[in-house]
């Protein structure tokens, strides 16, 4: 998780777009994915995501995420097949209708998660927050909460890791092969993690206030995020994509 949402520097058109436009691209792909009814369209949308990733040199991020998502998707596929039944039986409990709807559900899962990660890996969090405040008029405190939460994910990940290592070195069997046993051993550690998280959050609030958090307005940001012609063009394409999704 630590390396999944990380900014990949670059100079491609995708990097240079307004963060809000990038957000719109991700949203358009997601909406289109939900609306699309055919395999062709779902696969095409995934292909589009990967094409954008290849163009912005972030494919490796998507592949890392895929490794996490594919097992989940397979479990979902098996369950969905058990719940949706109809048509001819193909294999064991799987029916044609079940496979059809389960397959689409899996593709949708991938189609929703991947564009978001793509967007986050070509945008700096601060740019995203500032652009949302400037262009979309989102109140800064919400934008700040959002970016801070995302920023804390790897910090807490590292902390959890340090705790696990320390416990393992004491003799707690985190190196067990049994995932359920491992989970049972991990649960008691949530308390120390929570205690330290609350302390950290409080310190962050203090640090932010001591640097004038409450004085910040929409005009504060040093960097400006104007919408250019290319942003407008991309936005038009996004609308077209959603329409395409609804139709197909």
């Amino acid at each position, binding site marked *: 998780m630590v*390396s999944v949402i*990380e*900014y990949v*520097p670059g100079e491609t058109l995708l990097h240079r777009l307004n963060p809000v436009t990038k957000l719109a691209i991700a949203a358009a792909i997601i909406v289109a994915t939900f609306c699309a009814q055919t395999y062709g369209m779902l696969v095409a949308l995934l292909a589009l995501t990967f094409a954008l990733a290849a163009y912005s040199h972030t494919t490796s991020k998507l592949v890392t995420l895929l490794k996490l998502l594919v097992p989940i998707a397979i479990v979902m596929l098996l369950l969905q097949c058990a719940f949706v039944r109809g048509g001819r039986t193909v294999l064991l409990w799987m029916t044609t209708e079940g496979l059809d709807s389960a397959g689409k559900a899996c593709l949708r899962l991938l189609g929703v998660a991947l564009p978001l990660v793509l967007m986050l890996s070509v945008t*700096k*969090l*601060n740019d995203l927050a500032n652009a949302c405040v400037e262009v979309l008029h989102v109140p800064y405190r919400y934008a*700040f909460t959002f*970016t*801070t939460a995302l*920023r804390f994910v*790897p*910090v807490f990940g590292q*902390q959890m890791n*340090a*705790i696990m*290592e*320390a*416990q*393992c*070195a*004491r*003799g*707690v*069997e*985190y*190196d*067990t092969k049994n995932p359920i046993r491992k989970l049972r051993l991990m649960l*008691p*550690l949530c*308390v*120390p993690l929570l*205690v*330290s998280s609350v*302390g*950290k*959050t409080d*310190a*962050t*609030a*203090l*640090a*932010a*206030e*001591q*640097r*004038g*958090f*409450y*004085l*910040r307005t929409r005009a*504060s*940001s*040093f*960097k400006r995020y104007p919408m250019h012609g290319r942003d407008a063009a991309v936005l038009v394409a996004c609308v077209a994509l959603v329409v395409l999704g609804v139709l197909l």
Partner: protein
Amino acid sequence: MTDQNPIVRLDDVSFSYAQAGEKDAPRALDHVSLSVGAGEFVGVIGPSGAGKSTLAAALSGAIPHHYRGELYGAVYVDGKDTCDVTLTDISQVVGSVLQDIDAQMVASVVEDELLFGLENFGVPHDQIEARLSGALETVGIADLRDREIATLSGGQKQKVSIAAILAMRPRVLVLDEPTAALDPASSRLVFDTLCTVREQGITVIVIEQKVALLSRYCDRILVMDHGRIVLSGTPRQVFGHARELRELGVDSPRMARVHNSLVEKGLLPPGEPCLTVSEAESLVEGLVRPHLAGGAQAGPVADAQRDAAFRASSPHAAVPRPHAEGAEPVVRVEGVGFAYPGSGAAVEDLNMAVYPGEVVGVVGQNGAGKTTLTKLLNGLLKPAVGQVLVSGLDTRHVPTSRIAAHCATLFQNPDCQLCKNTVLDEVAFGLELQGVDADEARRRAHKVIERFGLPEGESPFSLSRGQRQMVALASVVVVEPDVVLLDEPTSGLDYRECMTVMRTVSEMADAGCAVIMVCHDMEVVSDFAERVVVMADGRILGRGPTAQEFADEPLMRRAYVEAPQVTRLSQALARDLSPEYAGISQVSGIVDLTGELVSRG
């Protein structure tokens, strides 16, 4: 104290963290009066729980605006009572750098981190660029401007946090233990930075445990205890009070101790102590030289013998423990290499053997591979090349949780280790994990807790940082391991706690346990370790008896390690005055020999 225009003034300030209505709560600050003039460099030192961080919070306005409690007296910042103005207004005068720098960061990129304060305080946009690059240059990290903060080292992060505050051009900078996690070289760089900042007219107030740094950089040192300021003055004035400091549990620089011990022996008249190695050298030279002129010629023949005799008789030159001889090593590291996937960091070709009953120090810069070495030893990392044997177990094939029965680790941050609701459960937990039955585990835990004087029924998380470290140490001691690994055992502890930890560790070694400690504090290493391993860039550059390695100047330079002050003093004296000083690593050794030379003449 008698500054005409103090930038910060505390007027009989008392504070307790108690909620309203609670009576007789302990006071974190107790009738503190203080005034700091513009452009001063003030250091604050004191044992844990003395109220140092509370003082910093009062100075920066976090008290009364962020922390709740009862405040008496008044704090004036730039002439204004901090109760009457908002925290935002105060922070335009006083910039504060928190203890936990990860929590202080608000952005993920260095540039944005600096921009945050500038934008918020409405600095005109045409001045922002100059302020930003100015702050980065002052701190010396202009090249890090576009870096992700998560990829920086501890020292670099500390500098970013200072730059982010500096960019706002505060008139006072308050820092809470800025070097706690840093190696000696990075710590010195941080203090050099603070010195540059002070030259720009900014007042610096820094809380710090490293006395050698404080004595070198500060104009004034405040010593706190139980919420009061008990000593205040120039470093020389403060460190002249050797006895009071010892009673408070505050360390003094080793060179001041040399001076103070010479005074106690009646060799010197009482006065302000020396603080640097060269001062101490000329001091000792002045004492001994007149006596040496006649008798020195008798020396050379007997020198070697006398030297050996001295070392054998002196309790202070670290004597290898006798049972280390002839025994089988309990830890063997043979041709080990390891690289972290996806990053350049790696260790190569590590070889070492540690015998039962030995204390081995591992020294080197941040990033030299010391922590990687400890993780290879306790099995958290498996070697890619070569093998690690701990008590005969090959770490590649035995699960980490089983190695734990033989090799216990005390981590730098005790909070990672603690997970139970009471101290007793916590200490017994390690034994239970090894299959000792619950009653027996509690009986043994009870004995250790009693020895350490810890509160058995309390939650470990409600204890102070130092006590939490002691709980973690107790749970290491109780399992009676063959090997103990210590990762920065003294960081975040005050001097007295540090000595308790190290004495316990020495006792374990006397009982036959092998101790391997990674430590940035060279004084601690030279006092307690009989052998050291010197690391740099993922390799072991040298290993051998502590005094010998520290005396190897080219090696120390290559590893960016500064030898302890006493070693440097004895080297200088051996070179310029009398070869008898060679190899002395303790203050008392220097003082005894000086006394002997003076009386002999």
